[in-house]
Structure formats: structure tokens, C-alpha cells
């Protein structure tokens, strides 16, 4: 028997595989017993109601997808009334993903979702900070630190900061999140991208731009997960293009403690079930007692010293 369990900032997960925010909901319980997952992560909510972006909200690009959903939300009241009770039927920890456009709104929501039944809060700091120039909090270390510090005051629950790949300062942002009080980092959200229908000359997304997710994102998210694991002492949860147990191993070896599976679930709704089973089998075959023995075991030898330099000169 191999041990798949991992520890994220004091929270024990029975295995390191959980869904990514926005790619999972109660609906998936119609396909399989979602109790098998390491955690349940809900779609990001905002305090008030929001409709989200114009359609089309999704388009396909070479082997991956773009989305511009735009965080439609029924608001915090609906979340507390319907979503939290649904997941209380499960032993699996519940992670609530939240977002806000100002620090105050963000912190208030953080306080509001600090309720029984919620085990950790994932803060989607990849959303725009309208108090500055509209760029996402997590694009800059300074705004990351500022918002995390306020969120930290708002809850006693573990805080997971979800970072964005739309930055040139991944390590610095990771450190700022840690210093601001994050208990873990989720690495990463989607990458800003675009596609145009050359026949109609119209953007393929109603919102003009959207976020790239799926296999194309994997090597970028893996690089970020590695950087974050090196830059901080808090656990990193890898996310981006993960679709197989090999992908999970790659992230664990790079330094991630757990992973989130997003787009792969759209292609194979039972992807996470398969991944967990394959992971267990792989560890048995390779006689690895615990999945924790893999974390951060990348043979980066002499190379790791030069990471910053490398960042700039591929």
C-alpha cells in the first residue's frame, strides 16, 4: 500500500489531486463519487452577483483552449446557502475560491466565507485591481503583498494565493505572497491570449481576449511551480495542463506538493479518477512508499544557482 496523502499548511489531503477553480462543480458528482478527490475547489465567487463576459466565452486553439468566462457569480449569499451545504455531505476538504476588485471588497468576502464547512480559502489574486491600473494584483509583488496582508487579517483559515502567469516576476510575487501571509501558492491561473477568426475577422472570444489553459500551458506552469518552490517555504499546488499521472509526477518532482486539474476534466470528465488510480499504481510499481518522497526531487544539480539569469536567456 502506497501513501498518497499530502499536507498543505496543516490540512491533510488523502491524495494530491484536486480540481482547479472554475472547472468543477456539483454537477460532476453525476459522473463519479467526488469523495475520491484530494479536495473540492469551488468556482471563484465575488461578493455580489455578476453576469460574466459576452459569448462566445470559449474557443479552441492548437491542442488547447481559451476562455473568457469572466467570473459570473451568484454572490456570497447563494454560495453560503447552497454550495457550502452541498459539499458538507463529503469528508473531502472544501476550498472556497474568492475574488474582489478592491482590497476591501476582497477582505470582506474573505471574512464572509470563513464559515464551518469551508476548510481553506483560495484567493484568486489574478483578478484586476481597480484601485491601481486595473492589472491583476499578482502581476506585481507590491500589490500582491498589500492584498495578501489584508486578507490574512480577515480569516484564520488557510489562505492559498492563486498566482498569474502574466508576469515577469514570478519568484518575487511568490515571495510577496508568502510575506503577506499566504499559507500555500496555487501556480497558476490562465495566460492571457487571443484568437481571431480569419474569415469573419472577429475575435473568437466575445471578450476579445481570454485565458489559455490546457496542454500548451503545462511547460510554463511547471516552470513557475519550480520557481515558486525554490523562492518560498510554503507548499506549492501546481496547476496548468495537467492531464495524466506523468504530468502530476512532473509537477511533484519540480517541487509541488499537490496539483489541480482543470481543462483535462472537460476533455475526460473522469480524468482525475484515472490520474489518482494511475498514480497509486505507478508508486507501487516503482516502490515509492509515499507520494511525498517525490516532492522537489528534481535533479537540478549545479543549475539551480543560475535560475534568475536563465529566466532571461533561453
Amino acid at each position: 500500500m502506497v501513501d498518497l496523502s499530502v499536507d498543505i499548511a496543516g490540512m491533510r489531503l488523502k491524495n494530491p489531486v484536486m480540481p482547479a477553480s472554475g472547472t468543477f462543480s456539483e454537477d460532476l458528482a453525476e459522473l463519479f463519487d467526488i469523495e475520491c478527490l484530494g479536495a473540492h475547489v469551488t468556482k471563484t465567487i465575488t461578493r455580489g452577483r455578476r453576469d460574466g463576459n459576452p459569448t462566445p466565452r470559449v474557443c479552441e486553439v492548437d491542442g488547447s483552449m481559451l476562455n473568457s468566462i469572466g467570473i459570473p457569480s451568484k454572490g456570497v449569499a447563494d454560495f453560503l446557502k447552497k454550495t457550502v451545504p452541498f459539499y458538507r455531505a463529503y469528508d473531502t476538504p472544501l476550498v472556497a475560491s474568492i475574488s474582489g476588485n478592491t482590497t476591501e471588497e476582497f477582505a470582506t468576502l474573505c471574512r464572509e466565507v470563513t464559515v464551518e464547512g469551508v476548510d481553506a480559502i483560495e484567493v484568486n489574486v489574478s483578478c484586476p485591481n481597480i484601485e491601481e491600473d486595473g492589472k491583476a494584483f499578482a502581476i506585481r509583488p507590491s500589490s500582491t503583498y498589500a492584498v495578501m496582508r489584508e486578507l490574512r487579517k480577515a480569516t484564520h483559515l488557510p489562505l492559498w494565493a492563486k498566482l498569474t502567469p502574466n508576469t515577469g516576476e514570478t519568484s518575487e510575487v511568490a515571495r510577496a505572497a508568502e510575506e503577506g501571509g499566504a499559507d500555500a501558492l496555487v501556480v497558476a491561473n490562465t495566460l492571457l491570449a487571443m484568437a481571431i477568426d480569419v474569415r469573419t475577422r472577429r475575435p473568437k472570444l466575445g471578450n476579445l481576449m481570454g485565458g489559455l489553459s490546457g496542454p500548451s500551458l503545462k511547460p510554463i506552469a511547471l516552470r513557475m511551480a519550480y520557481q515558486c518552490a525554490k523562492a518560498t517555504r510554503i507548499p506549492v499546488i501546481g496547476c496548468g495542463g495537467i492531464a495524466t499521472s506523468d504530468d502530476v509526477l512532473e509537477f511533484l518532482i519540480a517541487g509541488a506538493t499537490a496539483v489541480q486539474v482543470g481543462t483535462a476534466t472537460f476533455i475526460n470528465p473522469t480524468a482525475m479518477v484515472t490520474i489518482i488510480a494511475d498514480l497509486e499504481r505507478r508508486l507501487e510499481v516503482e516502490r515509492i512508499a509515499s507520494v511525498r518522497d517525490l516532492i522537489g526531487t528534481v535533479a537540478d544539480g549545479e543549475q539551480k544557482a543560475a535560475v534568475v539569469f536563465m529566466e532571461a536567456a533561453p
Partner: protein
Amino acid sequence: MMGTLTSLSTVRAKARPPSVFERDLSVVFNEPVNGEYVRLALAAPSHLLERCRAGQFFHLLCPASGEDKPYLRRPMSIYGFFPKQGELHFLYKVTGAGTRALSKLCTGDSLNVLGPLGVGFRIEDDWRNLVLVARGVGLATLAPLALEARNRGRHLTAICSARSHDVLMSLDYFAEMGAEIITVTDADGTSEMGNVEKIIKRLVAGRGVDAFYTCGSNRMLTLLQALGQRYHIPGETALEQQMACGLGMCHCCVRPFRKAGALVQLRVCREGPVFDLQEAMPW
């Protein structure tokens, strides 16, 4: 975490058997119907077929084929479901990478399907005389309604519209299901809205109409909405939208609907693809 505390008060979804299936099904045939459309039959287990309803759809994992490497699944209405023969049918138009790849499937090949998904057509107990108005690929979605109508002993009139007679599909299918068929074409000049309106008014005046069904044409939708309001006849329409998950998780597939004076965004894959005729918005 709080499991023991709350499991008494909430019915756990996990206790229920799966109501949606993800399965590799084997191709029985995959044959062109005319220059544009292909009919695909898959061998399916009866417990899956028994869950199917007219208006529902499956999300198909089209395999890579040559240059075409479709990534997302493709939504496709159920064209026919036959528990006795153990067959699930689709009728699709070859438009892009996914359907092109689909059209390359041969008998015996396997295709991964996810479904049945979404909410199908309603047929209320007191809806005796049904009228469907279909054009183009909308036929694929409306055809199984004829099957259900026959099974439930309702009278169905199918008004089938197309560019010309040779691309009019499914007439045999409707005939077999005992539907009354009215064909209109652009070639004849019979498909224009004024004429279709006349035909429907004649039906209303004649045996009467209890419900309208449509799919695939904006102008038909607008016409039926007007006639429905005028004669107080309820109805339903099936709608399309780009999809990712097909299961209700991603909120990609929303469309706006008129509900109680306000516009609300509903998911085509979950609250639809069949919606109330009057609540739907022309696009």
C-alpha cells in the same frame, strides 16, 4: 471534513448511481446522407439508451485525423435512440475540424461519448397536437420528437424547410413515425416566412395546435414567438452555444433569456439545450 456532522441532513450526490455516462461506443455505420450531412450510428447499451430523451445531446470526443486535431469535445443532438436495436444515432453537418474528423470514422472504430446531457423537450399531458418547424441541422435535434410523439400517442405535424428538395432530410423518418409532413423550400419559394405563417395559421384553425417546437432558425423562432403569443400556444426551442465541459461546470455556454421581465444568463448545456419558446432571445 464536516462529513459526519452533516451527512445526515444532506442527501449525498455520491450515493446516487451515475446519470451521465462517459463511454467508448463502437461505430455501426457512418454514412453520408447528402453532400453536407452524415448519419452516424453507434452501438450503445440499453441502460444508456433508456436515459435518452428527445432534445438532449451527447458531447463527442472526436479523434484526431490527419491535420485535424480537435481538442474540445463537440456537442451533438441525439438524432435517434433505439433501445431495442441498441443504437444511438446522430446526424451532423461537416463544418470544421471536429466534424471532419468525425466523418472519417469507419464501422468498428470506437468513439468516446459523454451523455445524455441537458434537458430535453417537454410534452405536457394535455398537448395532443404538436407542430415542429425545422430547418437545416435543426432537423437533427427535432427528429426524435417524432419518435416520442408516436410513443406517447400524440399527433405531430412536421414543417420541414430547406434550400431545395434534395437537401430535405428525415422525411422518411418522420413518415415512419406517423407524422404529418409539410415541406417548404427556397427553390419553390414556399419557405419564406409569410407562407410558413399561413401554413401554421391553417393548422391552428384546423385541428388546432397545443405546442410549437423549433430549432436552428432565427426567423422561425421569431415567427413562432409571435404566433405563440397571439394564439396563446406554448412552445419550446433548442438552442446552441459554444461549449467546453457540457456538464454545467464552466459557464461557457450561457445565453440570455427573458425571465420575469429581466434578462438572465442560462447554461445551454444544463438548463437547456431546450428552452421555453417565449423566454428565448433571437440572436
